[in-house]
């Protein structure tokens, strides 16, 4: 591979992409909202100037000949430290020192975000967590706009960071920093840290309940999540995710009411940056946490196989629909999702349509799934177990309700029989729907016993 072929590969990988339907409209809506907020911010600035003239609780700070305003009595910066280690002054001092050292090496420092720190650092919270001692440190920063930042990113902001033990070396250090990009917020930060990045720590000052869901589930044939309310103490919610699950699949929301089991969409949920990834970024090493697992699904590319009845209701199931369903199935987060590069569309005797493919999400190996879709596009999901792509008959999915077996092997002739004494019945090539009573399938010349 030379650089020309690298360019060619990059184009081949990306050139077919198109924005989702309605993308332009979404941009316009968002742009208009931001313009309104921007105008409001200008109005607030004018009001602040009036307050200054009246001797309000504001101070003017001069820096680089730029007049800037800083809120002198921000309670987040001045209230007593919370947490069960609030009285441990040595730890608080250590946390402040590590914050200051950490900021000099923070990835955002490269973008000059932390060039102009204001006031003194303040430990907002210090306490014990399942991952050991930790402290949330906050400080004001004046971010000077530069072309490495989002448009409109400059201004007086609040920066926050978590000082915690890095499990890689057992040392306390700054393991994540964050700064407000869009004005005031009632959260100082959301952190995922500790062994396996399994400890979640969310700050909240709004008193709004916080709920978390450890992982996506399949329940009653539908994608679902169990939601648990996180206990909040001293403005901090902490939970350690079980070691057996993929922490990237966890989801956290802050809202007034308990989320329903079908609350799956991550838009609007609380985001986290794994501390191990942050530390890797600081050290300029490959962030292992985002290394996607190797694909284990069936490697058929662009295969659209059909099988089963041509009769009964015919309705289209397009890629967008499948993608939407697969995303609901796989909402597990950050280390990749491989949707099968193929699917098998099967017309069923009862008028439904089955779609069989495989899906690999998070750190889990690929699994078969079947959607049973009714003409009004309602679906049920059935799990078909782990994929073994090397088997002579890689797809042998027994559908529910005695609708039969979906069998497939690309490029091979298929035959079946319902008892070892019966004659072989032709099932075409590539994919077929065969009777529920089928016991053996012949793939080319190789006989495969179906599991019963």
């Amino acid at each position, binding site marked *: 591979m030379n650089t020309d072929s690298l360019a060619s590969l990059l184009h081949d990988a990306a050139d077919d992409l198109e924005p989702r339907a309605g993308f332009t409209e979404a941009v316009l809506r968002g742009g208009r909202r931001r313009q309104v907020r921007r105008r409001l911010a200008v109005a607030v600035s004018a009001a602040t100037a009036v307050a200054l003239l009246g001797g309000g609780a504001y101070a003017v700070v001069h820096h680089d000949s730029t007049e800037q305003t800083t809120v002198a009595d921000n309670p987040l910066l001045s209230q007593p430290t919370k947490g069960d280690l609030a009285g441990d002054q040595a730890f608080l001092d250590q946390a402040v020192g590590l914050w200051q050292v950490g900021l000099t090496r923070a990835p955002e420092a490269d973008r000059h975000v932390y060039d102009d720190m204001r006031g003194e650092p303040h430990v907002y919270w210090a306490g014990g967590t399942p991952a050991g001692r930790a402290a949330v440190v906050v400080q004001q920063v004046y971010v000077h706009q530069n072309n490495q930042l989002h448009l409109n990113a400059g201004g007086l902001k609040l920066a926050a960071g978590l000082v915690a033990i890095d499990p890689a070396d057992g040392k306390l250090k700054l393991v994540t920093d964050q700064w407000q990009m869009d004005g005031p917020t009632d959260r100082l930060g959301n952190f995922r840290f500790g062994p396996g990045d399994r400890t979640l720590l969310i700050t909240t000052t709004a008193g709004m309940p916080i709920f978390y869901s450890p992982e996506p589930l399949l329940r009653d044939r539908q994608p679902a999540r169990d939601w648990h309310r996180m206990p909040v103490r001293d403005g901090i919610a902490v939970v350690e995710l079980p070691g057996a699950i993929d922490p990237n699949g966890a989801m956290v929301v802050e809202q007034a009411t308990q989320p329903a089991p079908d609350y799956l969409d991550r838009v609007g949920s609380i985001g*986290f*940056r794994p501390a191990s990834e942050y530390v890797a970024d600081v050290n300029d090493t490959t962030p292992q946490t985002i290394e996607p697992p190797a694909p284990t699904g069936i490697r058929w590319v662009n295969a659209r196989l059909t099988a089963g009845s041509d009769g009964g209701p015919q309705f289209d199931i397009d890629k967008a629909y499948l993608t939407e369903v697969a995303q609901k199935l796989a909402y597990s987060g950050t280390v990749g999702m491989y949707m099968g590069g193929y699917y098998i569309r099967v017309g069923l005797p009862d008028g439904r349509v089955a779609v069989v493919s495989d899906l690999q999400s998070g750190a889990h190996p690929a699994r078969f799934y079947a959607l049973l879709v009714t003409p009004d596009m309602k679906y049920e999901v059935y799990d078909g177990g782990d994929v073994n792509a090397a088997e002579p008959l890689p797809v042998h999915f027994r559908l529910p309700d005695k609708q039969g077996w979906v069998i497939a092997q690309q490029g091979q002739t298929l035959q079946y029989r319902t008892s070892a004494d019966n004659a072989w019945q032709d099932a075409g090539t590539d994919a077929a729907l065969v009777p529920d009573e089928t016991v053996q399938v012949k793939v080319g010349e190789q006989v495969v016993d179906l599991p019963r």
Partner: protein
Amino acid sequence: MNEADFTDFVTHRAPALLRTAFLLCGGDRGAAEDLLQEVLERAYPRWRRIRDRPEPYLRAAMANAAANRWRRRSRRVNEVPLESAVPPTGPGPEQQVVDQDLVVRALRTLPPRMRAVLVLRFFDDMSEADVAKALHCGVGTVKSQTSRGLTRLRELLDDTELPTTMIETGGR
């Protein structure tokens, strides 16, 4: 603000920008759409000031924002497009799909800034000087990041054919 002008630009240029965003996000399509949407939304109030040459500005904004992608990454599941999700096993015309998939996965493992340099240089065909301007760094840094990035890609792809001369052109 000429909204019709902005709308026309987004309608016609969003696909090309999305492709850059896709690679900047290491093949995470959901994050790429989020990234592009956010950058375009932020450009909306400033359109009058950037409308003469919006693309270099927006590509630079995306490249820099991609380094901050964690803020968006949880919003949508990562997705590999249905068509090219999983590479085939055997040689033949599908091998190109294998390479595409591998190169995107390899890109994902690079530090965001290094990835941005490679994407802007070899996908958007920007000069070293333009990349340096976009990323607010020196040309020497672009050279060294290019060199190190190509070296890492070669290691990740186990590709002995990546020309040594190209790798050795870096340096501050």
